[in-house]
Structures are given as structure tokens and as C-alpha cells.
């Protein structure tokens, strides 16, 4: 059971200072716009927090480009909006010295071959919900998520969107429950991020003997014979951390463990 509210709170509280700057080539005004500073929750997604950014920069770009979809770039890489912000930071930023995180804002030349378009927040929501369901398929054969009511889905989504911990966890608690007889999930929903994407596999939280598996077991199963470091939520969790506990407490709101693999 996800009952360690202290940990959950700390995870939820994680925010990142970001300095948004408009691409100087797209500025049509004489005056360069000031950078826009924002604290964004690690657990959220960029499309949910960048309305103000868009509004701030909109009047500095050409009229015909104002209706276009805004996209973000860091260090020459388009930002994948469907990754949680914390995952993106852990993947892209190696040292906290680079804070605040400098992100360049674009309105022109949307890189359709590298990132997906999110025409509106509903697209983000449906993506988020699909992830949630996939996680539940792994944990409970999809029984809990599919038996949930629409208003519970809405509460989850609004809790995330509005950064409301209690609202979110009131519903998310049910998704983190374990069945009576097993006391653990069927499989652990996780994604291991590598340079060229992420890997998924079926990994049970316990082995055949009923012993609790740890992060070390996961690394052994995923990357046999390799020396890798797993990073998530901006920290490197101890290898002896049990997988069931990790899944309950260190999952992102989409109920997946997002593990950045550093070799």
C-alpha cells in the first residue's frame, strides 16, 4: 500500500526552475523579450504548464505564426511533451549546476518527424489515461482502471493538472492497492530510458520463492552482466529498494516507474 505520505509528498513537491527564452530568430519586435521564469512540477507535462509562456512570447512573433503550435527545445533537441518533465530533466541534465533550466521556445518549424503534435490538452489527457490503463493492465490485469468511473478519471487528471496532491491521491490510492491474496502487483509497470528510447519487460515484484525483488533484481533482469546506474526523480535510489514499494511510491502519476539508465 502506498501509505508513506512523507515520501509521496516529497516526490510530489519536486519542482524545477525553468527559464524559457524565445528563439531570437523568431523575434520580430525590436526589443528582445525577457526570459520567462517558471517553477514547474516534475510530475507534470509541459503542455499543462506553458500557457503563460505562450501568452508571454506570442506578441513577439510574426502574426502568421501566432496560431501555430508552440514547441520547446533544449540543447538542439526537441522536447518530447509526452514525457513527464522530471523524466526529461533527468535524461537531459547531468548536473544541477545548470539550473535554472534554459529552454528555448519555438513557434516556427515544428519538428513533426521527431515529436508528436498535441493539438489540445485533451490529446495529453487521452495519452495520460492510456498510460494509466497500461500500467493497470500490468498491475491488476486492467481490472481497477476499467472499473473506475469517468469522474474518477477526471479527478486524477484535474489533480495532476492543478497540482492538487490530495485530490489526485484520493483516486490514485485505489490504483496502488494490491489484491488480498497476493499482497503485491502482478507485474511492475516501468520504463527504462536509454539513449534511443525506453525498454519495457514483464517483471514480477517477487521471485518464485515469494522473496521481494529489489531494484538490483530489475537491473539484473533488464541488463544482465552490465554495470548500470538507475536514476529517477532526480536521485539514485538504493539498489536494495524493493520493487513493490518503488512502484507504489516512486511511480509518476501515469503509474509507471520512469527509470533513467546511466551506463
Amino acid at each position: 500500500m502506498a501509505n508513506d505520505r512523507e515520501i509521496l509528498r516529497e516526490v510530489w513537491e519536486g519542482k524545477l526552475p525553468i527559464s524559457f527564452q524565445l528563439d531570437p530568430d523568431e523575434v520580430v519586435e525590436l526589443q528582445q523579450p525577457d526570459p520567462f521564469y517558471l517553477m514547474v512540477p516534475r510530475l507534470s507535462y509541459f503542455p499543462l504548464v506553458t500557457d503563460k509562456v505562450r501568452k508571454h512570447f506570442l506578441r513577439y512573433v510574426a502574426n502568421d505564426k501566432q496560431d501555430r503550435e508552440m514547441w520547446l527545445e533544449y540543447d538542439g533537441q526537441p522536447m518530447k511533451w509526452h514525457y513527464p518533465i522530471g523524466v526529461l530533466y533527468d535524461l537531459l541534465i547531468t548536473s544541477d549546476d545548470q539550473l535554472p533550466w534554459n529552454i528555448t521556445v519555438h513557434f516556427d518549424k515544428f519538428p513533426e518527424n521527431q515529436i508528436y503534435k498535441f493539438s489540445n490538452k485533451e490529446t495529453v489527457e487521452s495519452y495520460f489515461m492510456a498510460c494509466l490503463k497500461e500500467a493497470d493492465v500490468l498491475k491488476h490485469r486492467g481490472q481497477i482502471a476499467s472499473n473506475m468511473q469517468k469522474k474518477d478519471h477526471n479527478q486524477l487528471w484535474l489533480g495532476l493538472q492543478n497540482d492538487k496532491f490530495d485530490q489526485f491521491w484520493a483516486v490514485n490510492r485505489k490504483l496502488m492497492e494490491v489484491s488480498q491474496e497476493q499482497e503485491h502487483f502482478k507485474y511492475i509497470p516501468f520504463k527504462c530510458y536509454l539513449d534511443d528510447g525506453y525498454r519495457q519487460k514483464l517483471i514480477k515484484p517477487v521471485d518464485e520463492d515469494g522473496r521481494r525483488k529489489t531494484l538490483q533484481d530489475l537491473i539484473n533482469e533488464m541488463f544482465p552482466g552490465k554495470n548500470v546506474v538507475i536514476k529517477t526523480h532526480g536521485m539514485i535510489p538504493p539498489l536494495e529498494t524493493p520493487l513493490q514499494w518503488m512502484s507504489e511510491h516512486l511511480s509518476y502519476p501515469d503509474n509507471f516507474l520512469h527509470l533513467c539508465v546511466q551506463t
Partner: protein
Amino acid sequence: MSEDASENKGAADSLQSFQSMNINDGDQENNQKSDKQKIDILLKPTGNAPIMKKKKWTVEGDKPISWIAEFMKRYMKLEPQEKLFLYVNQTFAPSPDQIMKNLYDCYSTEGKLVLHYCKTPAWG
């Protein structure tokens, strides 16, 4: 998804190899342990979706769902603005960048990955 030009080229190449691979179905067993793992998939239409003549396909494991969807749209000659939704386990829509190997590892049954497809959203 990393480098656009090479990605496109690769997609075209993969399609050819993907089709040619289907001609000699028996080879895939031998290729299981090679660098590029081949995945058996079974495509099932749902709702108003057109039926594909060939349901069983073999595809490279590193191909993302979006690539499969594009291939299917071309194969069924759908209009560019028409949408195609793919579902796993008749439950959730996988992320467009999800690769076939991950899905195969997690959700395959009896050595095959079953993907349901339709033209309107089915399983919310």
C-alpha cells in the same frame, strides 16, 4: 525518432524488408536471437475498420507503433486525414513511440502480439 532524415529512409527500407520477410515466413524462428529481433503480430479489425487481407505480419522489434499505423494506413489506402487507432489487449492505446519489442515482451500471447485496429477511438 532520433534523426529525421535517416529515420525516414530507414522506415522505407524497413517496409521493404518487412514485406520481403513475410514471403518467407519460416525464417523468423532462426532470426529470433539476432540483433534485430523479428516480432510476429496479428492485426484484427474492430468496428468499422476495413479488413486487411493479410492479418499475420512479421516486423522488426525496434519499429514504433506510429510506424506500424502509417504502414497500415498506406496498405489499406486510407486518406491522409483519416485516423487509425491501435489497441493492445483491447484495453489501451500504446504510446506512438512504443516499440514493438516492448509490446511483444509485455503483451504477447502464444508467441504473437495481437493488435486491434479501428478508425474511431474504441477503448477509451
